[in-house]
């Protein structure tokens, strides 16, 4: 299949050409309030509001590099765009051999590991799986009570609360999702 190759950190990914709508230079993104930090923002594509998923952030792959372009997936099926480390090139992937993968990580639930002709391992991203995990993750967030810190009055110091509000993300806004969510209330 004809695929677009891109890298996130040390991992190389491939995305079926048929699943891509367009690759565009990222226009200004607009912050999505209340969204988890792995959403870089939303872009206006032909009067449609498209969320951009920071794939590195979502898959928890530590890397600072981001390509200035975004991959807009087939909107009718997936309705979102991806921001990745570095977009490489289109490549004809033939004869890939699936590699054994015992990991149950998020990474392996949205992509399958295969070996290229030259033996190099490559992950074929499955946008459908990605979207499913994403939406069920978002839905799971509902119904849980929040537990916010108390509001601060004038004169008080914010020092001890630094950790609650880590720095904003790189692209537009990366909402610090450190508010504890869940019945136990997390550490603060």
């Amino acid at each position: 299949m004809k695929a677009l190759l891109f890298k996130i950190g040390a991992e190389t990914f491939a995305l079926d050409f048929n699943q891509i709508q367009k690759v565009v230079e990222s226009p200004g993104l607009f912050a999505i309030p209340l969204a988890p930090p792995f959403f870089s923002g939303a872009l206006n594509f032909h009067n449609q509001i498209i969320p951009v998923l920071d794939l590195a952030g979502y898959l928890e792959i530590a890397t600072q590099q981001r390509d200035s372009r975004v991959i807009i997936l087939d909107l009718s099926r997936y309705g979102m765009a991806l921001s990745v480390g570095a977009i490489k090139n289109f490549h004809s992937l033939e004869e890939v051999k699936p590699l054994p993968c015992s990991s149950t990580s998020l990474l392996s639930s949205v992509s399958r590991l295969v070996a290229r002709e030259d033996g190099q391992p490559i992950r074929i991203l499955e946008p459908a799986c990605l979207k499913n995990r994403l939406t069920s993750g978002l839905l799971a967030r509902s119904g849980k009570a929040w537990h916010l810190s108390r509001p601060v009055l004038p004169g008080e110091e914010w020092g001890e609360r630094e950790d609650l509000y880590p720095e904003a993300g790189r692209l537009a806004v990366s909402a610090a999702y450190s508010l504890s969510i869940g019945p136990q209330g997390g550490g603060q």
Partner: protein
Amino acid sequence: MDMSKYQELFFSEAREHLQAMNGLLLEMEKGTFDDEKMGQLFRSAHSVKGMAASMGFARTAKLAHQLEDWLSELRKKKELAPQMVELLFEGVGLLENLIDDLQAKKEEREINFFLKKSVRQKTGNSPATLRKSVLQQERSGATPPSSKKITLHIHLQNDIQSSAATVNSISSRLASGGEVTATHLCEEAGRCRLEIQLQTALSADGLRKILEKIDGVERVMFPFAVSEQKPPAKAPSPLPKSVRMSTDVLDYLNNITGELITTRHRLEAASDGNRNSGMEESLTELARQIADLQHHVRKIRMMPLEHITATLPRFIRDLSRETGKNVQLKTSGENVELDRAVLEALADPLLHLIRNAVDHGIDKEGVVSIAAAREQDLVVLRVRDNGKGIDVDAVREKVVRLGLASPAQLENLSRTEVLQMICYPGFSTAEKITNVSGRGVGMDIVKTAVNQLGGSLDIQSTAGEGSEIILKIPLHVAIIHILLVEAGGHQVGIPITQVHSTMDISHSDLNCSDDRLTVGLAPLGRNEENQEKEIVPVFFLNEFLALEKTLPKKNNPMILTECGGRKVAIGVDRLIGKKEVFVKALESPLREIKGLSGATILGDGRIFFILDVQSLLQRHPLADAVSF
């Protein structure tokens, strides 16, 4: 029930059916017997009969019934003789006349002549030989359709022996071709002329043959040949006053109006830099015209609540039987109008609410009441039952059991807040899942639908007295007023329907107790010194958005909103202004982010997200005012 608006519908539908029948008859006349077409004819007649009967139009119903009967027989016999086509044409024409009468608010005209005649027609008849073109419409009198009344002028010879004898011969001859209805002998300048009025189905040629070779006949003059005379075409019925329109067109109109508004804003933004008075004037005019258009489009889309409450009595009856409880339904305000799309979205949730009331609220017998009322830009829908009320302790227990909150967190929640938790997916206080509800999806569906419509849902309940679910839904969808605010450097929109008022609060007015910020608000309109103030909890929008740290400043712009029946103040960085925008519904995955109710693209391409403040507040454990 007000019948007048249904009358218009009846008229337009009935005319459609009759028009269809005419068309079918015309087609069948040309070709052979068509089973399918006969079926269509039958169904149309059947429909007209049913509609007329339910409207109380007796003669129309009776006539339609007659046609239906004939059509039914003809279908069985699988034949359609020309004179039957004739008869059916006349019947349809007569039905159209009856509709004319009714629409002109006159009494339905007599139809017995037709019904009688038709019986005669059925009992054997010489096949008409001259059925080719459109029939003659006889509006009065019992004329068999296949024969015509003509007047023959027969000139007798000058030297006629006995005119009486000749007349006799002529009459008896003609009798074989029809029915002589009148005879008149006149003398003109010495010549005898016989005028004979004859009811006949024969053509001029046929008559000529009969009158051949009668002694004493000099000449037979036929009138301007009836069979060649085109009968007066039926005047087209007046165009219906109402149109039926596909709902797609309605949606399209709504959307295009919204886009017009966006474009208008764009123009305004573009012209702002250019103080061109000509442009300004036109823009103002344009704004007015678009507002007008929008108003009319909205009107078209409005439908009374009745549309979804009409089926409820039956639903309640079935529910009663199923649960073995005696439940009564009371409705009020069914004539309140809502946008068609909103109505559609509420139909299912309404059923869920009633199911819940019957299943959980009412023990053995009770009353479920549905009341709708307009409050400015909102429709308030209240579903109440007089059952045992919601057991808050049971809810608390279930919440802990399901892991939706810890006991510690629950302690902080007000009663109102705990009640709201019955809307969480997977929640149900039913012991076992019954047929009707208890699967725990009902309230979640209602909550989701209400939120998607940009409305709010409140639950009130008193043990032993009953429960009330209050839905507040904006009147119109897709085009809404939002209040643009800035919080933490980002701009978001809040639907005006969720904003009670805005105000500036200085930080000296803020109080802090038990880790909660509050402000004392004087009741509107009163400025007395010692007026008791309402204590209202204060939150900062930044906290919800978790964007940046925020300190109450010297002056804090705030939005006063309502949550669970209580007022709440939300502080923002800046109040930007009001805007009328076209809301885009969010698609997955954005749709799954709770707290977002939509987004809009402004004229300059900027995306603003619209918050559902109600749902944000409801998920906040501190959103309770009980302990103050």
